[in-house]
């Protein structure tokens, strides 16, 4: 059981069968998950909570909150979510000191 994973639903109780246990997996899922699932979780604040509380990334959580506040939906949501998460992943993977 992946207790800390994020489970993607499209509405109350309707599980898509997809989950993500890390930010890398989360990014992969954003690409192809039903956009209804992205909207469902964005407006329930589930992404923000999971990223802040489970992954401990307050900065990324704030970026996602701003998407919610702007009421981004549909494929625009998928694209912008992908952008903010991939940008954050790049930052996290960048070496602290340039070689």
């Amino acid at each position, binding site marked *: *059981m992946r*207790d800390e994973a994020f489970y993607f639903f499209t509405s*109350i*109780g*309707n*599980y898509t*069968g997809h*989950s993500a246990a890390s930010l890398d997996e989360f990014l992969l899922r954003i690409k192809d998950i039903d956009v209804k699932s992205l909207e469902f979780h964005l407006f329930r604040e589930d992404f923000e909570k999971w990223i802040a509380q489970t992954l401990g990334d307050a900065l990324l959580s704030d970026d996602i909150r701003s998407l919610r506040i702007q009421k981004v939906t549909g494929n625009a949501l998928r694209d912008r979510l992908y952008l903010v998460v991939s940008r954050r992943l790049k930052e996290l993977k960048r070496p602290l000191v340039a070689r």
Partner: protein
Amino acid sequence: MKSKSQDVSLDDLDRQILRLLQEDAKQTYGEIGNKLNVAHSTVYDRIQKMEQAGFITKYEAIVDTEKMGVPLITAHMTITTDPKETENIANKMAKYSQVLEVATSFSEELVITAKVVAKDQAELHSFVARLIAPLPGVLRIRTAIVTRKFKEERFGIRPRKE
């Protein structure tokens, strides 16, 4: 109790008694006897035998939760699983108090069906997301929330046709 199934089985009088008990289990032996034109002692004996033989498993009160002021929502879940894990998942689900009924069913594929209750939609979602979706072998879940009930009864015993 003439015809046989295992050690004891039911005749038409037993079936009529069961049907009356299903309608109202608080009826007295005399009331049942009056309705069926038999002595109350006959009704008593038949009920004792049916209890001992396991035809009557228990008597229960059906509580109107709405009147009690306990808001509950009911939902029907269909869970598609890896066939190797179906039984494990069904057994685990059966242990949760939120799950009133759980069964495996087959239509185009083997699925688990379950009737669940929760205080509200948030609690229902949390239950499914935290306890059911993470179970190994769960592939997909569909949940339908009951909006209005048109009939709710248990299977009623009928007298045998001649």
